[in-house]
């Protein structure tokens, strides 16, 4: 107790007080206790209009964000681009317990929903599937797919708990499902486990070894207490095991799985994947979709290779197996390739002389002058020299990935990207991209021939970027991925020509 340090006088009647307090605590309802522990009133203050507002801990937030930014820029690990993840949700009797409000399963569903959205935002080409555990069996709720909405709808429609959970049945099912996916993908399982036991039909150790052999990375988030078998499974397969303390910790633990994990060494060799960019079918066209085998009117996409119709992207064509994506899907990962530079702190001499600084933030027009202290809290972009408020700084680097200042002035350098059908793509985005002639169905033409297929691009070298003098870095650091392909169908054109500094 904190009180112990408070001196001699306190000690004298310390025991009595403590007892009283415990008595009080017992009389408190759970909801009262929550507020009492939270001390939420301490984080309120009045603003200039007399309304209650949260305490301004902007500076603190900003410091945390700067730390994140620094750690992100120093550790540049190769990350797996295409992930195949099954989320296994325990809906056994234990999920009905009410230690989380209103119940474990509702809280878990809420967190899974948030996780799915975040996951697709960070892993645009990856796919998720849902599996539930109840009544001793594992059931596949949704197949691997790239549409957040369909997963969320399926989960919310199936929310109810009964029976026991079987970890082994769940792993067996996921193992069979993940065995079908192409070898370049990262296979992962995330298990949200409420139960304290597992009710298995056979030897779970065998299943764990099977998963290890299939290179399936298993992670578990427990909702009650640490269970040895869960810990063992995660250790063996290279996953992460954590036990949630409360709802906010659960949320944190779940979201930790959204960023791509470091690529497993064996998969780190970059290999090229054929990808197609389907056209959106015109409205009103009637066709039979190849994924649901149903007659659909309008919408949908047409596979560029076999002309089959699929309902959603990204997916794999059910007829010819081509990975189908849309260019916006690819574009979601570009900000990893072209990150914007961190903003600089404004020098103290300028800070104390607010007249030399602009009055408002370039991004949001908010006044940069702090009304209380008459000092200025802002940062500036090293490239365009515009000033931004601390909130915009965080938003720009963590969500927008554009500097409004740099974008608002005509630049001589820019990144040009062309995407069209039949391109190849590497599975390791920070890795060097090799053009593997043997994987291509036709002889690779000389580079000059290839280049003539790409209007506007004048020179290309596999070993060195020759775009201009700005970047003659060897592509080991891969500042410029260059994607090429030469199939027996439509000829590629995804070129990222780089003129960024």
């Amino acid at each position, binding site marked *: 107790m904190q009180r112990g340090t408070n001196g001699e006088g306190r000690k004298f009647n310390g025991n009595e007080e403590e007892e009283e307090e415990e008595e009080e605590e017992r009389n408190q309802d759970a909801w009262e206790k929550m507020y009492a522990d939270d001390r939420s009133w301490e984080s309120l203050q009045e603003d200039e209009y007399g309304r209650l507002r949260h305490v301004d801990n902007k500076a603190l937030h900003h410091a945390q964000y700067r730390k994140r930014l620094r750690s992100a820029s120093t550790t540049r690990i190769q990350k797996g681009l295409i992930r195949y993840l099954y989320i296994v949700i325990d809906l056994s009797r234990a999920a009905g317990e009410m230690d989380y409000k209103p119940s474990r399963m509702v809280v878990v569903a809420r967190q899974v929903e948030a996780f799915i959205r975040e996951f697709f935002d960070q892993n645009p080409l990856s796919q998720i599937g849902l599996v539930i555990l109840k009544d001793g069996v594992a059931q596949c709720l949704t197949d691997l797919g790239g549409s957040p909405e369909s997963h969320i709808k399926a989960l919310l429609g199936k929310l109810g708990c009964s029976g026991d959970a079987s970890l082994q049945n769940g792993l067996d099912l996921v193992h069979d499902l993940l065995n079908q996916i192409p070898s370049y993908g990262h296979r992962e399982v995330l298990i949200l486990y409420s139960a304290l036991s597992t009710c298995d039909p056979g030897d779970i150790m065998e299943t764990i070894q099977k998963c290890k052999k299939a290179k399936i990375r298993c992670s578990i988030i427990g909702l009650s207490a640490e269970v040895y078998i869960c810990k063992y499974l995660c250790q063996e397969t290279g996953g992460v095991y954590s036990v949630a303390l409360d709802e906010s910790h659960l949320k944190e633990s779940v979201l930790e799985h959204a960023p791509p994990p470091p690529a497993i060494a064996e998969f780190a060799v970059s290999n090229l994947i054929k990808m197609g960019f389907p056209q*959106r079918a015109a409205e009103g066209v009637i066709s039979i979709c190849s994924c649901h085998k149903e007659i659909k009117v309008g919408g949908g996409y047409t596979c560029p290779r076999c002309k089959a119709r699929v309902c959603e992207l990204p997916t794999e064509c059910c007829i010819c197996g081509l990975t189908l994506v849309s*260019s*916006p899907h690819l574009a979601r990962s570009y900000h990893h390739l072209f990150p914007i530079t961190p903003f600089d702190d404004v020098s103290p001499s300028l800070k104390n002389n607010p007249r030399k600084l602009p009055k408002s933030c370039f*991004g949001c027009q908010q006044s940069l002058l702090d009304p209380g202290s008459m000092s200025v809290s802002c940062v500036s972009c090293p490239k365009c020299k515009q000033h931004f408020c601390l909130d915009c700084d965080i938003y*720009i680097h963590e969500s927008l990935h554009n500097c*409004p200042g740099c974008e608002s002035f005509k630049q001589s350098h820019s*990144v040009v990207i062309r995407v069209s059908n039949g391109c190849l793509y590497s599975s390791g985005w920070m890795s060097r991209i090799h053009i593997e002639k043997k994987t291509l169905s036709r002889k690779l033409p000389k580079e000059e021939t290839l280049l003539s297929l790409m209007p506007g691009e004048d020179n290309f070298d596999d070993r060195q970027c020759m775009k201009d003098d700005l970047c003659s870095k060897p592509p080991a650091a891969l500042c410029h991925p260059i994607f090429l392909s030469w199939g027996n169908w439509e000829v590629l054109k995804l070129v990222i020509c780089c003129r960024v500094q």
Partner: protein
Amino acid sequence: MSPPVPPELLTDDVSLLMVLIDTNPYFWSSIKQSFPFSKFLSDVLAFLNATLLLNQLNQVVVIATGYNSCGYVFDSAGLVNARAESCLPELEKFLKNDASMSTEDTVNGVGHSLLSGSLSMALCYIQRIFRSGAGHPQPRILCLHGSPDGPGQYVAVMNAIFSAQRSMVPIDSCVIGAQHSAFLQQASHITGGVYLKPQLLEGLLQNLLTVYATDMHSRNFIQLPKPLGVDFRAS
């Protein structure tokens, strides 16, 4: 900061309309004969005033998307009886400044305006509105765009689109130029906004009033134009 509006007055049809106006002089001089900038501006001002009159809590912010720069030219927050005409002096100043920054003597075709810049600024502004507390108007972005897509802006425009989608801000677009804009088609498709390329520019005001004046809540009940197909090309 805007004067405090009690949250209970902020019903679901109170809007924050961010209007991005393309002011690329090369584009406007190319269609001078058929649709002069002055005609465009008078239609837009009438539309903005109509929006302000629809609900007295509505807020309108205008950002000019120039050829060399972008800038805020109007913000109705904090103004009593705000009228959109009051943006004209600021707009004129912006245009002069934008023109003075030109370094090239000749431009290939009509060039492109800096859509990625004005979109980024609009999103920063909207984040500030989100930060202001629980009660805030429903934001949306309207791009009134004429210049062709700038291939060099693809990554930045896509980044802005995804950020808008994440914060559930719809991007409406009205294309004034001769060609469809693949960027804006994708922007409206991904964020759930309306994309329209009016066939007759003489009727621009009617298009603006019937389609783009609709607030987010009312869109649930109204049949707005549907896209005929989205061009997913990168550039």
